[in-house]
């Protein structure tokens, strides 16, 4: 009995000290003097622009990686092709790669003197888009692959036997089965795209009001000793994170009862 409570309190204490207290404190600091100052801090032109940049990045990266994710999950699970093992490993690579390395790789490719340099990609929005797509690439694939493995090919084969085209089979048989896994992957992709910092930091050139995303803005405010601005924009990002979290927990049970 004592052992059970010891594990419970140790676990909850660890979470409280590491997670709940710091995040809660920043929320409290932000709204210490009411809602007004916090609202003012996140509605300055630079903050609004940074938020807009972040939303644009997310709006491009998420659909691109979703389409790629479903296609390549199908390729990995349903078809044997030469180099499938390497393909699989490369898909996972962005998960284990330091964001700074990602940013540097893009900089060396598209920056001055790079193979594809001088096309206005580095230090501009296209560079930020590429960095965001890179780091958020694996999530949909990783969620869809196990589900595709699990459901097998019997139903798809039956549909094909009955004369369904590839597209019909996908729409009527495969898609309904992988729908929730895809949605969960989309949520993870969104969270990663909204929060990317390192890769974007290297490739952006940090032009306030131009290539500054919300995460870069947080650092910029902190470095300028503007605590209210830094905390308020952090809270805004944290609220987006919490929203993602709520969607995540809503989707998980559905995924399990499938």
């Amino acid at each position, binding site marked *: 009995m004592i052992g059970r409570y010891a594990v419970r309190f140790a676990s909850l204490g660890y979470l409280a000290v590491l997670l709940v207290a*710091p995040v809660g404190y920043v929320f409290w600091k932000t709204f210490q003097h009411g809602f007004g100052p916090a609202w003012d801090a996140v509605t300055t032109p630079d903050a609004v622009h940074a938020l807009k940049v972040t939303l644009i990045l997310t709006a491009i990266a998420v659909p691109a990686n979703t389409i790629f994710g479903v296609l390549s999950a*199908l390729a990995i699970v349903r078809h044997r092709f030469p180099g499938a093992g390497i393909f699989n490993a490369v898909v996972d690579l962005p998960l284990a790669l*330091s964001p700074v*390395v990602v940013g540097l790789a893009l900089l060396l490719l598209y920056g001055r003197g790079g193979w594809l340099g001088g096309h206005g990609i580095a230090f501009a929005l296209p560079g930020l888009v590429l960095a965001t797509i890179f780091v958020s690439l694996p999530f949909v694939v990783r969620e869809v692959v196990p589900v595709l493995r699990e459901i097998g090919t019997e139903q798809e084969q039956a549909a*094909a036997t009955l004369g369904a085209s590839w597209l019909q089979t996908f729409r009527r048989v495969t898609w309904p089965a992988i729908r929730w896994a895809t949605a969960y992957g989309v949520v993870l992709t969104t969270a990663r795209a909204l929060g990317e910092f390192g890769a974007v*930091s290297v490739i952006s050139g940090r032009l306030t009001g131009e290539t500054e995303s919300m995460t870069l803005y947080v650092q910029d405010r902190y470095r300028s000793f503007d605590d209210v601005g830094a905390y308020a924009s*952090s809270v805004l990002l944290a609220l987006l994170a919490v929203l993602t979290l709520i969607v995540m927990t809503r989707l998980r049970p559905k995924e399990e009862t499938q």
Partner: protein
Amino acid sequence: MAANATALPAAAARRSLAPGLSIGLSTIYLSLIVLLPLAALSWKAHGWQAVTNPEATAALELTLGVSLLVALVNAVAGTAIAWTLVRDRFVGQGLVNALVDLPFALPTIVAGLTLLALYGPRSPVAVDVSLKRTGIVLALLFVTLPFVVRTVQPVLFELDREMEEAAASLGAGRARIFLRIILPSILPAILSGVALAFARAVGEFGSLVLISGNIPFKTEVVSLYIFGRIESGDPGGAAAASVVILGISFGVLLAIGVLRRWVTRHDR
């Protein structure tokens, strides 16, 4: 599928175009987005003194050291949290379960800032970990928290409790049951989570930028060292150092792959 193709050549022919397309398109996408930049990175890597100089080796040692420490702490804390979520019952358990995912959802720069607000120079609880190695460990523990919990939790949930009951009825104590029966079953999951946490810690950047202060030989980790090289106009050296941690990341990934196969074989 092969049997199906011989039985129904027409259907197989209709199906064959689309798979080719999906393989082709996703290979092109992957090559353009991931492989081409990494090829440029390896091609442009030069100036190996950027990897072998004392500052770089100190950064690499520090990174591997703190990552190992963080991975070990996660092995214990993550398993305990997974245990609390699966075997315990208390009010608010669902909320705690959702909270564990917070570090995955929260931007890393925000994670660093929140830790700095509570445990930084103006800490209301008089704990200042900024510009210290303790701060690096704390930030890494924050961002790697979900890995072990989320790999151990499902395995613990699926675990058959009959063996534990049998052991208990034969007079085994709680510690003995855990060490002899539960731990061997969840060990592959723990190791897999630990490896993921380690890989993440080695490359971590966002949460460390504000908290570590980036002091050479003291709090400079590899990702920040690379960033410093880029800032000071030595992209070649930065690329050389990147190739080294790229190798480490890839090695860890391969190890996880082997572990995963081991885990799935364990299931069957």
